[in-house]
């Protein structure tokens, strides 16, 4: 029983990162109608910056248990990239989808090169803080407390996003803009400002996600591209543009992958895509997206 729990926890841990990236993707698609391939690069950028920030903080004498706020702050600080990048994307809002994919894919390649230029091609790691908060025994298994923190952070951010979108004035405007951009504009919504804010929020979800997960691993140049593929599976399963879809889709992908690894390892990747195919066949708009006319 504890073994099964341990296994599912592994899947949920992965799902937390996937959710944050996919949520950023959904948010931007919802309002700007842009499929932002660079969301994976924001995740990678968050990871690299997080490592650099924590290593610098530890070297400056910040006690190890404080590494978590440093990580989150570094992820949030990357939000400054939001407005200029959104400005760049604004040039293609009204153009064909192919342009959007090309431009955001160009961003993926450029950001990977920026990362390589700044941090080099070799894997990059944080000083050993992963186990700072200790480990918990689950029967015969041991799970780092930090994994629970990441899962809790993912849940908290999901709840926060839910509240923001459904209870706040900003959320109302965002939903209105997603529903009918022209009407929102006609009613006096400054779409330029909303777009900048939404894009920045989407970016920060990715960078914070990358920063949160990285103490448990090591940053590698290609990590962004690797995650985009899975984030797309999440979005297809959950439904494009739906936050609830991102949440459920991430859980499905994370847990399904974990179960496949334990039960039939040969199907580790296949299992996820079987679900993707099934969703595309039987519910092409995804589990939570409303069908559009």
């Amino acid at each position, binding site marked *: 029983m504890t*073994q099964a729990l*341990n*296994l599912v*926890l*592994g*899947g949920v*841990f*992965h799902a937390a*990162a996937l959710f944050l990236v996919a949520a950023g993707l959904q948010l931007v698609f919802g309002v700007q109608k842009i499929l932002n391939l660079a969301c994976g690069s924001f995740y990678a950028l968050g990871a690299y910056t997080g490592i650099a920030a924590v290593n610098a903080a530890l070297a400056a004498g910040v006690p190890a248990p404080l590494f978590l706020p440093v990580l989150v702050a570094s992820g949030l600080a990357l939000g400054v990239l939001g407005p200029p990048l959104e400005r760049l994307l604004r040039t293609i809002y009204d153009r064909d989808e192919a342009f959007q994919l090309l431009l955001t894919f160009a961003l993926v390649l450029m950001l*990977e*090169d920026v990362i*390589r230029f700044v941090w080099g*091609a*070799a*894997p990059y*790691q944080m000083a*050993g803080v*992963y*186990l700072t908060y200790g*480990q918990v025994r689950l029967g*015969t*298994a*041991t*799970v*780092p407390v930090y*994994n629970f923190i990441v899962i809790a952070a993912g849940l908290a951010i999901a709840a926060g996003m839910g509240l923001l979108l459904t209870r706040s004035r900003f959320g109302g405007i965002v939903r209105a803009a997603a529903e009918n951009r022209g009407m929102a504009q006609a009613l006096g919504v400054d779409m330029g400002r909303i777009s900048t804010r939404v894009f920045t929020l989407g970016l920060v979800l990715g960078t914070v996600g990358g920063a949160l*997960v990285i103490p*448990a*691993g*090591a*940053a*590698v*140049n*290609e*990590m962004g*591209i*690797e995650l985009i593929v899975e984030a797309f599976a999440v979005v297809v399963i959950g439904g494009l543009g739906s936050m609830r879809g991102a949440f459920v889709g991430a859980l499905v992908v994370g847990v399904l*992958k*974990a179960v496949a*690894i*334990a039960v039939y*390892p*040969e199907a*580790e*990747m296949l299992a996820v895509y079987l679900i993707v195919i099934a969703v595309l066949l039987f519910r092409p708009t995804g589990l939570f997206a409303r069908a559009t006319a």
Partner: protein
Amino acid sequence: MRITRRQFLKVSGAAAAAGATVRLSPIPAFAQSGPVKIGVLAAKAGVTAPVGESGLRGTQWAVERINAGGGILGRKVELVVEEESNPKDTVERFRKLVLQQKVDVVTGVVSTGVGLAIGPAAEEEKRLLLMWDGTTQKGVEETIPKPRYAFRSVDNEAEAVMASILAARRFKGRIKTVAGINNDYSYGRDNWAAFLAIMKKYGMNVTPVVELWPKLGETNFTSHVATLQQAKPDLVFCSFWSGDAPILLKQAHAAGLTASTKLVMTTAGGVHEQLKKAFSPEGMILGYNSLYFDDPKASPLSKEFTRWHQEKFREWPNYESDHGYFTVVAYKAAVEKAAKAAGGTWPTVEQVAGALAGIEVESLSGRRGYRADHIMEATYFQGISTHRNKHDFVTLESVETMSTKQIQKPSGMGLYDWISSWTV
């Protein structure tokens, strides 16, 4: 200033005279002039980027030394670097190097997929190709059976063969169950199959309890580690060689797996500085391929390179530098050998190819060469990990070396047939 016809004749006369003087120098006259151009196909993005960069460093160091020593038969060496990416694009860049840049030889290539595509292109263009890597069983068995212009690296499974022999010697009678975690492609699959075949050969009587196949580039192994814990193997065999190696060790350590299970990491020495003591255990079998930066018995050449690498890049070098260095130095030696045989004229591509087969030179890992079938020979370095060093990462407690004459299948034989033909 206008130049009159008379002035022009004067200047060209002087130039011709200067040319004649050069021709009187002891360096033999060759049909070719200008620098020797070496094309390099180095990976610059993705999982193979660090490997490509390492190969390029070894190549650059070799060229600097050759040029400082007067070049190859008096001709300076110039590098033309292109990127190794997917097979199709890399073949195009190979042709660009050959047809447009008119390079004399092409080195590089890390991926077997690229190697499979580019080998036939080299035969077609009749241009020498000296590959650094990319030689899984698929790469050696299925492309061009009798290459004339393509020279290939050591069988990629040689490190699994060595690590398995070390594991058999060290753990005989102490392990009953084994588990594998290897990337889901030919290298990972072949390494695991070779390990199991060698366990059988050595009469280890082990049962594989779980075989995991994460894709290359995976960065989260929490579920894999949980599965390994559930299976409780006595030994875990892993052939990771990139950023996935430290991530797996970190997550395995956090879950308490490294304390209870023996580990064989055939190739993690490729990212040795990432194997931090904080999570990399002592006592695991750890492979460094053909270059171990801290070998007490290293040659002065190897020590000089290691020092240069550390001073220039603030990193200790890994094996691909040795492959890169070797290809350039082997080419130089072959040109010189072939030129001598041809009576002092610059040799043809075919003459250099002939001289490369069977050549032996000093590389960063000691003496190494090419077999008659165009496959590299080298020395491999592995051993047991230790924390007793001045670094923050693990090194080897004692260095074991094996020649590829022992751990690489001979010409014309399949890997598994060769293993089953052993007498142990």
